[in-house]
């Protein structure tokens, strides 16, 4: 497998980009270019005020290498959004062809969105899903076409604009992303996918994903992300809001493979109503620094959250990931399974929170963290927090940190494998629970990405 698929950049010249750094004028320009309603501009400007008043985080990985004044917060590709790949400019289409997106759409997806820097360049949904009332749009289009729905759900109750420093930034400069509405009782059988590609040097991508699964509906949504490697640091601060209404089921899959000089400071949260289920499946391979803690707020009886995550931290990478679950309603259940692999001087950290509030009687949570250290100097930290405020709750937590067993390597070598092959096989076994939960083509992709990282280091 060739890493250049992800690292190569395109020479596509955008039609507009703001100067580096963030000012009120930049935000007004973004809003003007998108012809937004006044309430959205007001929301952006309020978020910017909060952003200016809020200091940087005083915990987690170092953000010293991130110069927020040098980031270009808005860059539009020189194209309009297309509904056929033939209408996408050749240089941009080449990028997505190399990533295999059009081919995947033909074979296994119900709809695809593709974002290039700040704007979506392609969006398409199968006709039968449109006929069932499913909405799958780029977030900017949704704001124009479904303003009431967007105003009701966009950064109100799920991720409010004052949540934390980088959500304030996101709310100020968000652009593009995905809007999905699945009507009551509709099951979307084929997954919908969005692919986010950041091409610009010192770029920032701030896409917003808003998913509303109405009562009894079912959806699988996949996000893929990548960026080429430039000399200057890039920033990704996306926002994902998921509303899982009564009895609905949403499976959210994301494979994030940003370049190694990207700061990936992403926020993902789901509000889950009674009998609803959210499944998170996150793979984090790229990025120099990642801070990502998908959160589920179980606010209806018997709501459920399952979170499965794999992170790989290689040379110079710091992957600070985890999961948060707040049990607010009775008889809610959650599981968290976090796996990490650290290699060279890579640091992977699990940072999680499970909170069971007084009303969440009969709730259960089970957390498992497994860390694999490939060599001395690789680092694994766990920071799990458990808060319990009701008597009728059950929580189990277990964590293990260990290395690839020499006996296992020896056993496989005695069967004719080289040491490298033996180690790869053991790592593949370690990540198997995550890989098995992925659709086949993504499972292969994830396996290859991790193999590539291990091979890169060995050579």
């Amino acid at each position, binding site marked *: 497998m060739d890493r250049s698929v992800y690292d190569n950049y395109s020479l596509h010249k955008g039609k507009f980009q703001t100067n580096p750094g963030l000012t009120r004028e930049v935000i007004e320009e973004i809003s003007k270019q998108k012809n937004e309603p006044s309430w959205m501009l007001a929301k952006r400007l309020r978020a910017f005020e909060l952003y200016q008043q809020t200091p940087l985080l005083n915990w987690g990985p170092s953000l010293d290498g991130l110069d927020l004044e040098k980031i270009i917060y808005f860059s539009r590709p020189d194209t309009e959004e297309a509904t056929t790949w033939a209408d996408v400019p050749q240089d941009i289409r080449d990028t997505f062809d190399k990533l295999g997106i059009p081919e995947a759409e033909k074979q296994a997806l119900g709809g695809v969105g593709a974002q290039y820097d700040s704007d979506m360049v392609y969006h398409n949904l199968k006709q039968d899903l449109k006929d069932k009332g499913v909405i799958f749009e780029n977030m900017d289009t949704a704001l124009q076409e479904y303003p009431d729905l967007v105003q009701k759900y966009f950064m109100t109750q799920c991720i409010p604009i004052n949540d934390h420093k980088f959500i304030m930034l996101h709310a100020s400069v968000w652009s593009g992303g995905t809007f999905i509405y699945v009507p009551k009782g509709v099951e979307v059988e084929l997954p919908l996918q969005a692919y986010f590609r950041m091409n610009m040097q010192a770029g920032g991508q701030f896409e917003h994903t808003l998913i509303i699964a109405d009562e009894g509906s079912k959806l699988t949504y996949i996000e893929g992300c990548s960026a080429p490697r430039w000399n200057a640091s890039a920033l990704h601060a996306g926002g994902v809001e998921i509303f899982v209404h009564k009895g609905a089921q949403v499976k959210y899959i994301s494979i994030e493979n940003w370049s190694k000089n990207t700061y990936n400071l992403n926020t993902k949260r789901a509000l889950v109503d009674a009998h609803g289920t959210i499944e998170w499946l996150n793979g984090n391979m790229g990025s120099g620094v990642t801070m990502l803690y998908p959160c589920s707020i179980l606010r209806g009886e018997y709501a459920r959250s399952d979170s499965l995550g794999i992170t790989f931290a290689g040379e110079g990478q710091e992957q600070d990931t985890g999961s948060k679950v707040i049990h607010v309603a009775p008889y809610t259940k959650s599981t968290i399974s976090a796996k990490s692999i650290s290699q060279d001087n890579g640091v992977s950290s699990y940072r999680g929170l499970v909170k069971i509030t*007084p009303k969440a009687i009969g709730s259960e949570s089970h957390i498992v963290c497994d*860390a694999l*250290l*490939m*060599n*001395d*100097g*690789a*680092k*694994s*930290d*766990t*920071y*799990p*927090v*458990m*808060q*319990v*405020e*009701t*008597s*009728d*709750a*059950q*929580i*189990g*937590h*277990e*964590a*293990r*940190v*260990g*290395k*690839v067993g020499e006996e296992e390597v020896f056993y496989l070598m005695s069967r004719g494998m080289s040491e490298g092959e033996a180690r790869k096989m053991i790592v593949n076994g370690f990540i198997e629970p995550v890989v098995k939960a992925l659709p086949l083509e993504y499972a292969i992709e994830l396996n290859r990405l991790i193999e590539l990282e291990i091979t890169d280091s060995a050579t």
Partner: protein
Amino acid sequence: MAIYNTTTPSSDNYLVIKSRNQEKLNLQDLSSNSLIHIGEQATLELVLGAGEYTHNIHLILTKGAKLEILEQETWSGTINWTIDLIEPYSAIKYITRLDIQTDSKNIIRINHQAAYTSSQIDSRYCLTTSNKLTQHTIIQIPEAITHCEATQSAEILLLTDRPQIQIIPELRVSTDNSNASHGVSIHPIRDRDIFYLMTRGLSHRKAIQLLKSGFLEVK
């Protein structure tokens, strides 16, 4: 004399457990800011009795030193432990069996600074009141410190309608040649266990008492 006191600029009380001695101390007898040095092959048993604490206790374990901390009586306040395993074969075992009756915050930092060191934190708590329990444990194994064993487990039995628990078991591991793990289990008393004892003639109250005492027994 196996123990002698002195004063250092950083602590009110500096104790040294001489090599190869076995000593037992009560935390009440120590000043709130104490540094204890445990000599080679020496053993110290430190007991936390009932009381109110605002203590910072720093323990240093040298080659082959053993430290056992036993926490069995309810106490209130905050204790900050820093336990440095600075030479090989030193070992710390921290055992807690507590029926929580007051607010308490226990912060335990264990630094494995030498190879072949071991740490074990084994905690069991019963919560019969709505008092606040905070336990924050931090185990660090830096790079190149090999063949260490670090385990921490916490089991909490919920017997109150309004518990307030915060458990944070941190592991910070930078070496691939050591084993570290932690486990936490928080649950109410099982109805079937109470029922079983009641069918043997015990009242509901007595059944719960018996289950509690069994849960808190040090084996």
